[in-house]
């Protein structure tokens, strides 16, 4: 894989580009506006997280009174010590990491395999097969029959129940298929002349050339598995198998919901998590998945693909 990217003379190309451009005034104005625009947008999307960070580092009294904006008040680190020492949190983190790794790997493989034949227009029955897949984007049997099925397959309360059913994601499959269709037909034809079968063509030519889209879809899968709490809520009751988002959901739900019904159950209202701990947990549950994106970004670099395909 690495040899493929290395083949692109990226540095040479960018140098050439820089030299080649003589920018006109309107283009300079455009650039200034563009940079400023994204600085503003970026600020607006970053500030909520700064606020969460500040809350998680402030005293509970300051948070309850809504006095914390972008800087912590009465700086303390006790919340992080508390959350990071919580066995339930750490256990949930482990489950989430395992689920995300396993789920992404399996789903990416199955989805990328499925997309290949469906990207070939001459595949007999292609239209009906595609409709068979697309149908499931809209129609489903609902929760009850699905739960029964999982129960009969003995999947309830196991980790695989959280990723086996989503191994084929039609949306992602269509995105990959779309990408395959954009690759030149000549690739397949020349490989065929060399006597390669479809499976070899897929693994040795299509997949390596599709790294940008595979990275994208890997990210989609990873984020989906990381963020999923609904399936866990329905299928998992063993506390040792609860993923992080379910843990987080319960931490946050219990405070607002029990307040609503507190007349019935004051005990639970007394046991709600302080807001500073909620803030710390949200951050700690989000940061691991945020790190994935910058890591995948290098696959989006412009020109990797066609530059290397060119005969």
């Amino acid at each position, binding site marked *: 894989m690495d040899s493929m990217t290395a083949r692109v003379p990226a540095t040479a190309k960018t140098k050439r580009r820089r030299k080649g451009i003589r920018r006109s005034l309107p283009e300079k104005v455009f650039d200034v506006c563009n940079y400023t625009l994204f600085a503003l947008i970026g600020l607006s999307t970053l500030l909520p997280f700064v606020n969460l960070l500040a809350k998680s580092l402030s005293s509970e009294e300051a948070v309850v009174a809504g006095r914390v904006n972008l800087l912590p008040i009465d700086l303390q680190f006790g919340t992080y010590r508390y959350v990071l020492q919580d066995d339930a949190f750490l256990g949930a983190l482990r489950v989430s990491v395992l689920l995300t790794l396993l789920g992404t790997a399996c789903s990416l493989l199955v989805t990328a395999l499925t997309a290949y034949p469906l990207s070939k227009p001459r595949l007999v029955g292609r239209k009906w097969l595609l409709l068979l897949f697309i149908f499931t984007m809209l129609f489903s049997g609902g929760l009850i*029959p699905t739960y029964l099925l999982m129960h009969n397959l003995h999947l309830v309360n196991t980790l695989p129940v959280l990723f086996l059913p989503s191994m084929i994601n039609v949306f992602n499959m269509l995105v990959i298929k779309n990408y395959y269709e954009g690759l030149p037909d000549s690739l397949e034809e020349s490989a065929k002349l060399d006597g390669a079968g479809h499976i070899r063509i897929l693994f040795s030519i299509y997949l390596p050339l599709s790294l940008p889209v595979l990275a*994208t879809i890997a990210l989609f899968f990873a984020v989906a598995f990381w963020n999923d709490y609904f399936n866990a809520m329905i299928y998992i009751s063993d506390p040792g198998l609860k993923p992080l988002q379910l843990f987080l959901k319960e931490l946050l739900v219990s405070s607002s919901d029990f307040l609503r019904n507190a007349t019935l159950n004051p005990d639970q209202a007394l046991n709600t998590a302080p807001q500073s701990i909620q803030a710390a947990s949200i951050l700690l549950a989000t940061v691991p998945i945020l790190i994935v994106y910058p890591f995948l970004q290098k696959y989006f670099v412009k020109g990797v693909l066609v530059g290397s395909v060119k005969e």
Partner: protein
Amino acid sequence: MTDRNPNSAIAPRPNRRSVWKNIRADRELYLLLLPGIAVLLLFKYTPMYGILIAFKDYNIFDGMAGSPWVGTENFRKLFESDDFLLVLRNTIEISLLKLVFLFPLPIIAAILLHELRQMTYRKTVQTVIYLPHFLSWIIISGLFIDLLSINGGLVNKFLGQFGIEPIPFFLSNDYFRSVLVTTAGWKETGWSTIVYLAAFSTIDPGLYEAARMDGAGRWKQIWHITLPGISPIIVLMLILRLGSMFTGDTEQILAMYNSTVYKSSDIIGTYVYRMGLGKQEYSFTTAVGLFESVIGFVLIISGNYLSRKYLRRGIW
């Protein structure tokens, strides 16, 4: 519009003998389909009989077989309820607003990002603007309520500088929909650019260089190279977006609305949620879901048809 793959539009209709020949020749293709089809059949189609619940008076303890058939009773209940027309109109209007304003945004954002030449800056921005995708609607709702508050919210303070009276964004049927559209844009635009960013890598950099040689400016390059290059994925996204026109907004609206803006923002999903509180209405909710799915499916099929007719490209 460039079409790199003329075959994708309409394949010639093969005669029967060559059909079998084709299948045999392509047996490896079918082999590759196998895992995907197996997962699909087992996990999606096996439980599909659950759709029938919409036509029954379903009691979970009696099960499928034990519950009586009621025909289209559940659909009639939906269509004949007092607020159905209002709720249907809101659903369609909010979806259309979002389609018109929010569908182009990630495309524009992706192209503008693409024009940022400083790589570190570009990568940082990309990473930062996709952050809100990870916040729940409840948190975002709280955030914007503060921001748009009439008691010292930043936006109203700003408007106050120009002598504008405080606007109760969350409490006004005139403004609430714009709040819905704006917050959805803020939350998902950055995330949605990703799929387009990947598509840029299919564009041959040689094209840009050739264009520059010919003296084409940035706008011309965007218009004649970038946009056509990512048009296949734009078409795909648009068709798929049509399918979720009726269902996408429930979670957001449930987290953000209140009774004073029901008139402008109560949609099918939120309405059914409130009516079903404390009840066991499996059949009714299944019927509503089926209604939404059928419409979504019809929209996707028509979208694909139109796209093939006018753009000569579609999902199938």
